[in-house]
């Protein structure tokens, strides 16, 4: 799952008590329930969100 999302620090993120952590947990959950066609979309959405979080809080990633 982590490789599919191309977010190596996903494990760490998923345990984080923050909105960002919640996003990571939710994306993982959705990814597991998604069809193969939907998965790239969810992965792209997660990467986009993490980029935006990093832009807002650069010290967190």
């Amino acid at each position, binding site marked *: 799952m982590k490789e599919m999302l191309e977010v190596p620090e996903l494990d760490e993120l998923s345990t984080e008590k*923050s*909105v960002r952590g*919640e996003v990571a947990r*939710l994306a993982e959950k959705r990814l597991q329930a998604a069809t193969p066609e939907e998965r790239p*979309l969810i992965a792209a*959405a*997660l990467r*986009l969100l993490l980029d*935006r979080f990093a832009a807002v809080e650069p010290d967190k990633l």
Partner: protein
Amino acid sequence: MILRSIELEEFGKFRGRTFELRHGMNLVLGPNEAGKSTLVEAIPAVLFGCRDVSRLKPWGKNACAARLVFEGGGQTVEVHRDLLSDDVHLIERDDLYQVVTEFRERVPLRGRGVAAKRYRNLLARLLGIGDEELFRATCFFGHTPQEWRGDELSRKLRELLGGGSQKDYEQIMESLLEEHFSLTRYSPWGRDKQQDRQLEILDRELAERQPQTAGEVTAETVDPDDTAARIRRLDEEIARDQAEYDKGVRYVEQVRARTAAQPQPAPATTPPPVSAASGDHAPLPDRLRAAGLPESLSPQTPELLGEAAAIRQELAELQQPLSRLQQQEKGLKKPPWLLLGSLALLLIVAVLAVLFTGLPVWSLLLPAGALLALLGFGGWRQWTYGKGRSICDQERDRLEKQRAAALARQELLSERCEALGLPTAPIDLVRLQKLVAQHRDLLQEFWSGTEPAGSTERQPEPAEPQPSVASEQAVDTGSGLQAYDDGPGDATELAELERRLAEFGQQLHDRRAELARLQAGLPSGPVSGNTDSELQALKVRRQEIAVRVAVLRQAIELLAEAVERYAKSDLLQLIEDASRLFSKVTRDRYPEIRLDTRMHPELRVDDKRWQPVECFSRGTVDALYLALRVALARVRGDGRSLPLILDDPFAHLDQQRFAGALNMVNLAAVQGQLILLSHNQELARRAARERWHVVALDPGSPDQTAMEETDHDGQLHLL
């Protein structure tokens, strides 16, 4: 981060005193009038400002200032405020005691300026809370604790529960939405935007290009039969266009001749030339305008108007059978059951009377027969009524269906009219139909007047619908020419006519070239390669935008749900913790609390009902808000919180609840910092036992110099 010290330069009854505080429980102990409340009031007064400085200003002094020092995580934050001028000096230092942030501005309690906003943001970043009301509702518990009510406080509490990420989330969500609506106007979450965005513009462009390309592709791939059919169709269209063009050429010649003749003044005695073209015909546009008509109409207009008239006729025809049916339904009479029932009752009474008076039984035959006759009559009337009703219902269904079908057609027609810019109301359509008839008459009259003498060519019918595109163009061109059929004309109009004629000629020429290509079996479309590549590029671009929109939508939904879950998880945690603590304090009398959408607490009573907190005693309310503050401090746990300051929180609690509440705050102190103010000597003994840090206030010597106390000093003092 903990509050390390409170330095009171000139504050209430204190002058030049410093109170050191520790992590964990800090007990400020002293009798009444010792200055306990004044001491803790220094915290909100320094951080946020003070409503009534005169209360805190020392007697006979014109100064009031204090300093707070916070420490934690290698950081030190010092906040100093002159309460008379509201000048604030905030310094943030790192672990090497280097200044990281410094703020020095005037920030009054209700300040709304840029400096005040910047200061509050700074406080929120460093200490977790940048607002006095929120501070009093979450960290401070005075004699009358700030209750959780009001929309503004509810919003702040929710934001506080959401943590510092709330603002980041808003910023991110805003940027995602902005990007989404720069790509498409359609919103899956609410109202669409008015104007088309990139995706819709591309769609439109593709739709415009697709038919052309489809036409080209068809031309290239159709079988010979189709090509032959197309050649025939094109040939017919060219013949029609040629006729129109010839007519236009003749007309332009005529106008040119008139224009050339115009400057020459006619002799006064010479009668005006009698000709069909320049006789008593007024300029056509003027005549059309005078009749309230547009100068040109869409070729589809007569067809639409004809259809509208047919629908109106159909609807009108339906009115007659409907009204007849209504009359018929009114004519149907229900059996008079009331009357029949009354008569039957009378007969039964009569029979009973006969039986009681001892008359012979045969005398009952007459009333019994009458009763049966009444019932039979009633049954027959009911049957005829039911049958008539059924027939009427069937007929009404049929008519209603016809009417609905007609109305549906009218609706479709209205849409088509709207698309052509025509009015949609039936009365307007009737008026328009009359106008179109006038339009046609005027044009025919005019054309009959402008035709050259002896011309045998057919009269044009500009407003009639034509099947082919080419013919429509020809008609449009004809209409365009007609708009300038205004008698003598001038040079400008002549030039315009010539320009239009040239354009039409060019179109005709292109059409001939197309025909020649088809006849020669050559592929049409001179730049089809370029068009294909452009089309492909557009399709690729559209695909990219569509994917980006899908990703953005997924991201927005993901973020919104994550924020909701995050806030809900914290809220649920808060409710759970507060319920557990409050249940312990009240010894399971109130096992559960809940917060409504406005963060207003309610208590469950009798395992069934929920009651708002106002319905309970002061002691219960105090215990509840104490539990909520302790639970909130625990749930937040982000290291940015201010200490919990409890000014005599047990004043309204009975002995049992006092013990429970004390245990609760003692446990809470383990995880952070808690400042408890009391005059209760029992607490002094507990402090010695639990090794709390004690700050003893002596009412006799308030002005003593700064006093450094250690844990042991505090304990020994009490012992």
